[in-house]
């Protein structure tokens, strides 16, 4: 198990390294540079001398690979630079907004699980019934509905026709816990929809497969009731393949946060990232993308560990590798 973990961590670090290179170069490949962008709004910057001085100050005149090494070293040491737009420290910006986005993540995982798991279980237990047909259609709908479209429909329904939820904006928890919850219901639901559909689909097929296994027949032959069979004998093996899609579903949650935070005017990391792209704010873009990668790698690592925990066969294979 230990070597299995070390292996996964090394692999994650390697991916992270390549992603930093990619992220750094991608930002540079966007047409125009930030000084140019700023010059459009600031008459002072039409002066060529000032422009080159600014370029030198931000290191934009050095060869690109030197810029990369300097940037990576600083980044690891916690110096994420200052925003080209607001002049704020990027690390501070990041951590100020992090709790907001984490709340959205937690909320969307909540929706995904609270909707997806029961739908999948009910579909499997009532397989091939009309109920199964309805639930299956619903979950396919959930998987394929575009985030922005769902967002608009829900805002229209619950903020315009039945005005019970705010159409946009974010209220910090410390300010008003109730308003905070109300303000995140719609955005987290939209972010969690895809995952809910995905979980429902996978739980259904995985549970159906497990319920057809010989050891479930053994459990029946022992006199166990259907409920214990589901909970004790089927749940854990059925979760093993489902766990592997958590990583996939998480990707949708993260990418959803960019659209959703923008759409609902929530001042989180997604919003920060989108604003940064429009403003060609390189330090912020880079920090955002690297942290998105770190986030996804951490989640996938957790998934691997969970997998090892659920499946004793993986656990033993790890032991042998020690």
């Amino acid at each position, binding site marked *: 198990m230990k070597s299995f973990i070390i292996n996964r961590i090394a692999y994650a670090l390697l991916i992270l390294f390549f992603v930093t290179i990619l992220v750094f170069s991608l930002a540079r490949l966007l047409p125009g540079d930030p000084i140019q962008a700023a010059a459009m709004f600031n008459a002072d910057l039409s002066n060529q001398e000032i422009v080159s001085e600014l370029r030198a100050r931000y290191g934009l005149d050095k060869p690109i690979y030197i810029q990369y090494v300097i940037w990576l070293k600083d980044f690891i040491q916690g110096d994420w630079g200052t925003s080209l737009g607001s002049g704020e420290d990027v690390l501070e910006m990041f951590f100020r907004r992090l709790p907001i986005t984490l709340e959205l993540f937690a909320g969307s995982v909540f929706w995904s699980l609270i909707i997806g798991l029961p739908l999948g279980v009910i579909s499997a237990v009532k397989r091939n019934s009309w109920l199964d047909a309805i639930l299956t259609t619903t979950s396919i709908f959930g998987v394929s509905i575009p985030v922005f479209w769902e967002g608009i429909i829900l805002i229209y329904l619950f903020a315009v026709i039945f005005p019970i939820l705010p159409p946009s904006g974010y209220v910090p928890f410390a300010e008003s816990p109730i308003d905070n919850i109300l303000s995140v219901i719609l955005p987290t639901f939209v972010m969690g929809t895809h995952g809910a559909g995905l979980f429902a689909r996978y739980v259904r097929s995985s549970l159906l497969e497990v319920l057809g296994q*010989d*050891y479930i027949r053994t459990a029946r032959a*022992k*006199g166990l009731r259907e409920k214990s069979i589901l909970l*004790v004998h089927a749940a854990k*093996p059925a979760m093993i393949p489902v766990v592997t899609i958590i990583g996939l579903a998480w990707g949708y949650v993260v990418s959803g946060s960019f659209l959703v935070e923008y759409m609902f005017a929530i001042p989180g990391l997604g919003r920060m990232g989108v604003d940064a792209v429009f403003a060609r704010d390189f330090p912020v873009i880079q920090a955002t993308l690297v942290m998105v990668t770190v986030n996804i790698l951490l989640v996938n690592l957790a998934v691997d560990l969970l997998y090892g925990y659920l499946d004793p066969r993986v656990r033993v294979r790890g032991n042998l590798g020690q």
Partner: protein
Amino acid sequence: MIDRTMTPLLEVRNLQTHFFTDQGIIRAVNGISYDLHEGETLGIVGESGCGKSISAFSILRLIPNPPGKIVNGEVIFEGTDLLQLSDREMCAVRGNKIAMIFQEPMTSLNPVLTIGHQVMEPMVLHQKIGKKQAIQESIQLLSKVQLSEPEARMNSFPHQLSGGMRQRVMIAMGMSCKPKLIIADEPTTALDVTIQAQLLELMKGLTRDIGTALILITHNLGIVARYADRVLVMYAGRIVEKATAKKLYSSPSHPYTIGLLASVPRLDQDLKKSLSPIEGQPPDLLNLPKGCAFHPRCRYRIPKCFTQSPELEQISDNHEKACWVDVH
């Protein structure tokens, strides 16, 4: 000795279990009847696909529905018809009064639960004993089925055990509530020959100790000869011959039984000559021939066999066959 004058422990009457598939109705079990007395060992033999497992699963109502359904019959166990019980009452019989040992030791244990958990489960469920006592009794059971290091094995997972060891665990599980009847569906078919013999001896000994009746399903007539008191020979979902093990060997009467016996390798025969499997294809249950289902493969057939299906008839004490022809 087995007292055949007493009411039988199990009476199966005209049991019919069908599968309703897209291709048509498969009559996997097509009207079988037999009795089983306390402490008796009944062998059920027949080629693969003739309905041995389905007839056994039907007793415990473990038929996957859909597509399967018990469409007719009675399964009277200790005086009550199991087919009339509610699901809840049926659960109290399974694993408690009647236990089952399955054919596939590799897949019949849950891969994510420990051996200890799985062996303890029936006792905790049916006998309502505490966990500590259940652990003690499980360790004893595991040593009774001669599993090495039973205490350490309690925390093992199935994949850490060989096929033979897993089948020992299955036997321990089946014994855990001291059932009145154990149904063993080809318990040793998947294992190699020396382990087969060990396990069958073990099962025979354990069932004798607690006076449990045993239904031993196999396609190996040698096993039946050695371990069964009485034998049912099945073909295409029906019983074609029913006799004590002794009579079946000394005077087999159905052409199918004769064919089966001829295909059993005997030590006193040249191996090549002795292996003469019955000619022709095993029956296609979706497309059974008219008349006797065995007639296309039968060496003794007469015109009547093509049109009329024979019923079981007594030919001597404790000996019945379903055949129009007197083979002797």
